[in-house]
């Protein structure tokens, strides 16, 4: 079995093992082992990938495989990875692994919880390895459905409402996506030849410009809804607020990245003319998201809402980077995807840790937690600092790439947008420091004088995340190189179409 298919198979095997395991301890251990294997596999994948590239393989995709799946419509199970997807897979495996650590104490239907989590993960893996639009879509749906269950069953607060909202909005997005995919599909034989779903086959032909203009928004919005594009972001605050910790992590950390990835890999890649035509319009939406998410975060009282709006803001930067249409900004967007994944996962993990102790997420009700749970507090500060783009953490690297890339456009429109985007760093600082100041510092609230210390599983999970945040932040060159290596085909296709 090839190295990529394993990423879909191992989760399935883990699920089977989970079904046969008994007792909460066994569930945990089985899930943990399954994901440790996957994490190791993703490291191995990166290693193999670098070997492959070092060995002179300069194909767009490596480890490709193509199996006919449904011949009448020419649907293939076609897989392959490039540098970007390899990193995304790494991100996924790390976050799921830490998610398992963080949800160590889930005792309400643990087996089902872990199964849903794993199914979700396998959907995400599948999405990242697919190069066939249809398979990609299928995996996307596989990733979205468990989300509904996870929020609806294990969530808190108005969870049914949140789960429903999230699922319906994402389903609506899928509908648009499907229209877009079919639109691409039926135009994929423009230069003669059979209709195909394979991205790279499609990219070889030139889809008629009118069709591109028509279908680009469908694909873009379809993907962007999951990437929290303004004004389709409203599922995210509610969804995050109600979701259990691990799910918030996975959701904000990985699932929302599907949006940016999909836009880049599919929408922009197969429809460059459409992308150029629509770029300015969507850029305005993205910048509204960036600035507005940050401003809206200032006034929130619920920790998770703050972070959700912060995600809207940061993912707006991803979209902005993608739409800026140059190599630096693209690299920045991809780095931002990675970095935001780790940072926001850390954030949600810490929120989970704090909530698990104080049983409140309202900032104004807490004070002086740094005295009581110093390690958790310090980690929260680290997450905050990473989020506001402190050098040495990953956020800075990513944002600077985006900003420098964005600044390479000299016209007024782009300039204004870039300046607004840059100004978001100030606003980010405001809301992060506000929370830190209110919640962690100050005199300790009497009722929280005795909170249990952060436990080993929570520590392990968060330390892994911090490690990666710092790794990206301190050694950006290595990550950047992997991404730049894979951006070449995109430049060729999108910038010089």
């Amino acid at each position: 079995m090839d190295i990529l298919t394993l990423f879909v198979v191992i989760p399935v095997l883990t699920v089977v093992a989970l079904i046969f395991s008994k007792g909460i301890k066994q569930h945990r251990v089985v899930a943990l082992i399954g994901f440790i294997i996957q994490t190791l596999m993703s490291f191995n994948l990166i290693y193999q990938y670098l070997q492959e590239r070092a060995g002179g393989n300069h194909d767009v995709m490596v480890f490709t495989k193509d199996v006919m799946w449904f011949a009448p419509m020419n649907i293939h199970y076609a897989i392959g990875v490039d540098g970007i997807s390899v990193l995304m897979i790494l991100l996924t495996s790390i976050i799921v692994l830490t998610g398992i650590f963080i949800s160590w104490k889930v005792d309400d239907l643990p087996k089902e919880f872990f199964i849903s989590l794993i199914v979700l993960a396998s959907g995400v893996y599948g999405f990242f390895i697919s190069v066939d639009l249809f398979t990609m879509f299928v995996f996307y749906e596989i990733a979205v459905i468990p989300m509904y269950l996870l929020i609806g069953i294990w969530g808190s607060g108005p969870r049914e409402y949140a789960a429903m909202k999230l699922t319906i909005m994402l389903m609506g997005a899928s509908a648009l996506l499907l229209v877009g995919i079919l639109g691409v599909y039926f135009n994929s034989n423009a230069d003669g030849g059979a209709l195909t779903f394979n991205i790279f086959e499609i990219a070889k032909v030139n889809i008629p410009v009118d069709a591109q203009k028509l279908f680009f928004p469908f694909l873009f919005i379809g993907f962007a809804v999951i990437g929290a594009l303004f004004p389709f972001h409203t599922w995210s605050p509610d969804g995050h607020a109600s979701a259990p910790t691990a799910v918030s992590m996975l959701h904000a950390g990985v699932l929302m990245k599907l949006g940016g990835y999909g836009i880049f890999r599919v929408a922009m890649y197969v429809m460059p003319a459409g992308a150029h035509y629509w770029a300015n319009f969507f850029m305005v939406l993205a910048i509204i998201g960036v600035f507005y998410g940050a401003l809206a975060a200032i006034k929130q009282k619920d920790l998770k809402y703050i972070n959700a709006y912060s995600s809207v803001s940061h993912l707006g930067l991803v979209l902005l980077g993608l739409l800026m249409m140059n190599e630096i900004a693209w690299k920045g967007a991809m780095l931002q995807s990675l970095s935001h994944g780790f940072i926001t996962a850390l954030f949600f993990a810490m929120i989970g840790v704090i909530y698990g102790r104080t049983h409140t997420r309202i900032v104004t009700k807490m004070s002086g937690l740094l005295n009581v749970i110093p390690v958790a507090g310090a980690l929260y500060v680290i997450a905050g600092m990473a989020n506001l783009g402190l050098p040495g953490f990953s956020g800075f690297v990513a944002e600077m790439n985006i900003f420098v890339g964005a600044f390479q456009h000299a016209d007024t429109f782009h300039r204004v947008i870039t300046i607004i985007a840059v100004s978001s760093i100030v606003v980010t600082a405001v809301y992060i420091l506000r929370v830190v100041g209110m919640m962690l510092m100050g005199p300790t609230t009497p009722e929280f004088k005795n909170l249990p210390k952060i436990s080993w599983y929570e520590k392990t999970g968060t330390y892994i995340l911090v490690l990666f945040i710092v790794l990206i932040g301190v050694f950006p060159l290595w990550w950047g190189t992997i991404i730049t290596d894979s951006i070449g085909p995109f430049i060729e296709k999108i910038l010089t179409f």
Partner: protein
Amino acid sequence: MDLTYTVLIPLIPLFMFLFLGLNYKRIKEPLSGYIGTAGLLITALLSFYTAYRYFFDFGKVDEVYQKIYAFNTVWIHFTESLHIDMGVLLDPISAVMLIVVPLISLMVHFYSIGYMHKEPGFTRFYAYLSLFTFSMLGLVLATNLFQIYIFWELVGVSSYLLIGYYYEKPSAILAAKKAFIVTRFADFGFLLGILMISYYAQTFDFKILNDLDFINNLKMQTGIFMGLSVITVALVLIFIGGAGKSAMFPLHIWLPDAMEGPTPVSALIHAATMVVAGVYLVARLFPMFYFFDDGFALHVVAWTGAFTTFFAAIIAFTQYDIKRVLAFSTMSQIGYMMLALGVSGYGGHEGLGFMAGIFHLFTHAMFKALLFLGAGAIIHAVHSNYMQDMGGLRKYMPITHITFLIAALAISGIPPFAGFFSKDEILAAAFEHNFPVFVIGYIVAGMTAFYMFRLYFRIFWWNEPDYKHKPHEAPKTMTIPLLILAFMSIFSGFIPFSKLVSSDNVPFTAHINWTLAGLSIGIGVIGILAAMLFYKKEKDLSERFRYAFGDFYKWTYNKFYIDDIYFFVTKTIIFKYISSPFAWFDRHIVDGTMNGIGNGTVWISTKIKKLQSGRIHDYAMFFVSGVLIIILIVWFSINY
């Protein structure tokens, strides 16, 4: 010559930070102080050695000080020419900073062993100090603009952490937050400036950016924005960043509040090193500032500096918190440095202002750190920050008294103390290039003497209040740094600075203009005498003056209400009128629309549901009418 070892200069404090930070539970009080100090001692020795060798060994080639990249590695790669590097740059000003930063930092480390005794989080304090030293060294050794920005941010965050060191005190939290956000706001301008330069110059590298040929080329190419070269705009933006860190008006509001931090921190960060980063930045890009648009950006620098120095000096008259007096004095002195850079020309004696600015930076670091550390010793002794609780301390704290006096004389510009030499050259430079600025500088010199001696007399003479505990001299760990710094404050003025630092890196000889010097000594002495008259003994003279000035005094005491204006803008306008509506808008309009779509569907379906009555004849009716309608449609579509 292998200079790679210079990388260790910033890396040792970083290592200390990580070591202490990760083990902060295990390493107990005095030990962490010793570890931190020892680490810093190594750094300091290395950097003194490097600076010495730079100036006297390898730095000068053909009588010109070279910019040497001791180490440089690509950190983020954008394009062939545009990349962010991490490296160590050696040139005269960075070498000067290599003396200032580790020296003051070492003193503060040493001093804190006594000062921070029995504070909770002692180890944390040392970890933060190490982090700060690392960032500051990274900043001064930066080889490119972006590296400066990176460490700039790190410096900002360590300042945030240190101001908020007493994190249970609400005022400290607010001050920390304010410092971070205000400087962050300024950094926004800085970043924009960098980005603009990155676009037009396609490089961040200082060697290239400061190259005269390159600057001339760039002048030809760049566009015009509002009558100015875009590069000038970028430089002004960069200066805004510098102004934020250096507490220039109107971005100064964070500095007085930053005094909530422990006093050694104020000495290190908010007096001697971090706040002069803005000066350093302008000096770093000096050729660009000078050559674009005939130094328009430099004029901005000069006038901002001049205004701030005057403004801060006035406020310093009326403050009672001794640390705040010192803070405003710091602002005023940094304004002086900015002013000096602003009035400087380029090359040889023309560049006197440049040299004087850096010189003043150097001497000011010594005596201001000394003042702060002395103030720390006093606060340590009387447990209060307020002048009202002090008086007559000279009997109890002789060493502190003497060193404080030396520092006060130095800052007032009385020869032969260090401040005299640097200040005199600033005034000389201003006199030659910009007379109005010179007048301001001259007046401020007198004002400085007055408020410093007001402080001095008020603390050490005046009448003794009722001390609850008898004040006592500080422990040795605290007095030794005072003595070392006092030594520096006396003698550092004799360093022939113009031989070391100059705008075009060619050594020249600066002469003291004795007429000007006499005038400035004169006004300094007048200030001192006035202060003596007012404050040596407890009299109501100052009270009477206060009534005479009335509203003006009140305005000054409240720092011209600038804080309140900011407070109004942030709290009322941003929070209440911008952010809240945004949040509301999101919850109700955007989300409302999305929910509305959902609710609309539900509403329609409940209406439709009613049609499903369960009654057969209703169904039949629908069926029949449906069939008929279809028939009609088909009919008409066939026939017409």
